[in-house]
């Protein structure tokens, strides 16, 4: 399965819901808290073109916002 990375901030309610969804579905993921790591925030903007969280990358694919259906679709 492609690697799943979720870019978050600790105060973002939708990030919390997204992580809860992934855990409930048994999807393992790597979390990057861009609020605590300015270098990671810069990388996220360069990689995804987004200055907003949550953003999820699944391999090369990017999903913006809280979009469980989009994640399910990409993971088949």
């Amino acid at each position, binding site marked *: 399965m492609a690697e799943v990375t979720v870019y978050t*901030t*600790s*105060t*973002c*309610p*939708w*990030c*919390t*819901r997204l992580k*809860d969804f992934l855990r409930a579905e048994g999807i393992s993921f790597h979390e990057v808290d*861009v*609020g*605590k790591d*300015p270098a990671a*925030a810069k990388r996220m*903007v360069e990689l995804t*073109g*987004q*200055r*907003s*969280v*949550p953003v999820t990358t699944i391999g090369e694919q990017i999903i*913006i*916002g*809280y979009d469980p259906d989009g994640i399910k679709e990409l993971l088949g």
Partner: protein
Amino acid sequence: MTGELYDLIIIGAGPAGMTAAVYCLRKGLRTLILSKDIGGQANWTTLVENYMGFLEISGPELMQRFEEQLKKEKATVVIDEAVNLEAQAGVFAVTGKTTGAHRARAVIVASGKRPKKLGVKGEEEFKGKGVSYCSTCDAPLFREAVVAVAGGGNSGVQAVLDLLANEARQIYLISDEELTADQVLAEKIIDHPKVRLYQHSLVTEIHGEQMIAAVSVQSRKTGLVERLPVEGIFVEIGLEPNSDFLQALRKNDLGEVVIDCECRTSLPGVFAAGDVTNIPEKQIIVACGEGAKAAIKAWTYLTQK
């Protein structure tokens, strides 16, 4: 149109919708909840300190508690956005964007509100690329940045405070009139060295290439337009009801569904509760109370029909 005929469809699963659902399920009504999400606007609230029983709790955590209670009652939930409501041959049909028509003998509308947009050039183009509607989420991404905030109410001032807490370099607060935020909040920012106020002013355009580079701000008093270089803009200009699809119901000038003291709408058999209605107190605890009322009234309607 096929499928089960429910006693009741509840549109929306925020505080009003989930409370209504628990009441209806406990009364034995066959109930379907149709909602684009679970928790609604309460998910956007950082801290709730006036919901009885909790000294303080985050909005998402409170909504998770609600959801647990909903699951305990074995609720049937369809995650989809309602796009139409109409009366057909003595029953109501509620159409979901992707799931099609669902039928019931009565309906409770609890579809809540959504953030208002500025409606200016560049807003859609730069959404997520500097335009944000959630300072709680995105303020940490603007450390050391120059940022604008549109909106002089409590939400706008709270966005400024979120940005200050996250060490933004400078913040332009743009308000179409005088600040309307509560004094206790406004006092925290009015003389802050990092905050510059633009009162009686409007954002007229958002500029940039890949990301936001500037916003244009026009004074309503002089008509002069100033272009402010910024890396982001937080839009906090209030909320509007999710009622576009409710053509069948009477609404007020704000687009809110008009209800009476028994949560009845202009269409018999359709009830409404929470922030989508003309009840002026937009509070979680009020929405819950209205949801409970709507459920009891819907049950009475169904049992006396």
